[in-house]
């Protein structure tokens, strides 16, 4: 008999109550249980960074946590960044303007990595930006336009 645990998890300021099997990954919980498919799942072993979310305000791989561990915690996913489709987060707006994405698969994870990075380092050098991006794989862009987008976002957000 499989165990299941009641959890109360806040995602993008909305509280959800669900029953979860302990082996359910947080990434799968967000996508399959809550329908928040903006969080992408790439490698599922912590290398690609596509599933990065904010866990209690800090970036983390949602594929390396179990949903049951998120009980009582606060999460932000890419869906929580923009107020609505006409009011993008300045980082999203910059990715659009600087062509910081092509297929878009890696983009949610990159955005969720960079939101806390730009908060801690509002005026980053190119080296610092590239270092911050090192935990996120993008196979389309060659990163150059992503770096440009981050520079543009840093300007907008200062």
């Amino acid at each position: 008999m499989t165990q299941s645990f009641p959890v109360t998890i806040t995602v993008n300021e909305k509280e959800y109550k669900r029953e979860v099997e302990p082996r359910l990954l947080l990434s799968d919980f967000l996508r399959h249980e809550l329908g928040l498919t903006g969080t992408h799942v790439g490698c599922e072993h912590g290398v690609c960074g596509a599933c990065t979310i904010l866990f209690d305000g800090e970036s983390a791989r949602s594929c390396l946590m179990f949903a049951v561990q998120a009980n009582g915690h606060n999460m932000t996913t890419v869906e929580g960044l923009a107020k609505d489709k006409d009011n993008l987060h300045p980082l999203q707006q910059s990715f659009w303007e600087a062509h910081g994405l092509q297929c878009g698969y890696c983009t949610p994870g990159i955005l969720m990595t960079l939101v806390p990075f730009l908060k801690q380092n509002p005026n980053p050098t190119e080296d610092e930006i590239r270092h911050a991006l090192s935990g996120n794989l993008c196979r389309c862009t060659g990163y150059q336009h992503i770096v440009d987008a981050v520079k543009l976002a840093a300007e907008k957000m200062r």
Partner: protein
Amino acid sequence: MKPAPFEYHAPDSLEQALELMHQHVGEAKILAGGQSLVPAMNFRVVQPSVLIDLNRVAELSYIREEGDVIRVGSMARERHLEFDSSVAKHIPLLTEAMPFIAHPQIRNRGTIGGSLVNADPAAELPVLMLALGARLKAQNVSGERWIDAQDFFAGMFTTALEPDEILVEIELPFMPPRTGWSFMEVAPRAGDYALAGVAVLATLDENKKCKQAKLVYLNAGDGPIEAKEAEKLLEGETLNDKLIDSAAALASEKEITPFGSIHASSEFQRHLANVLTKKALKTAFQRAEDNLQ
């Protein structure tokens, strides 16, 4: 579902966690930060039948100064060590090395205790514990014991912990006065496993002679590898390029045993270790001399 099913426990005190380890001895695995265990579970390389999650045991998450040591709870996050001001002041080697551990997203979750118990020979923290002369406190239901870092690592992914023991605290002595430090590694991409890496500490005496040296390598054998012969060569000597070259050659040719992989042959790993040792020793000595003034 990626991982195989398991029985899950999330104790909120160390006492409960120890009791659970006692009840499930041999079948339970501790879940700390999960940054190595969960990938292995997702691949089903590891299929623990019982998982004891320490993330709700708040009493294991601390970093505090006490006399001339810093005590770190085994559930302290790597990211907190990286930015801790007393660590930066008294153990700058650790502060310098932390950013080499994977990526910020991983360090936000990864714990010092998790990395040490995982005992990956390519990991940074085991090497640092050896270089710094850390002591590790293990606990089970019947008591506690202290293990020196050099006795803790017992081979590839193996430690001196008994099956019912939990690593609860790491005691890090302050670096001695007149000590220089350096941590260097070479990885194909930032945050990836390093092909070679070294932690160096050099303590000088009043006459600028080397009083004590520490040279510890990662990915250089089946655990963190200390180059004791090379350390002896340096001790008691005034440091110069020739001596540094000899120590680097001794350590990289005779004392480490890198295995080689598809990314680098063992010869190339030895070459990298040699170059890194020279650079790191020079940096450490320079910093030790700066500390003399």
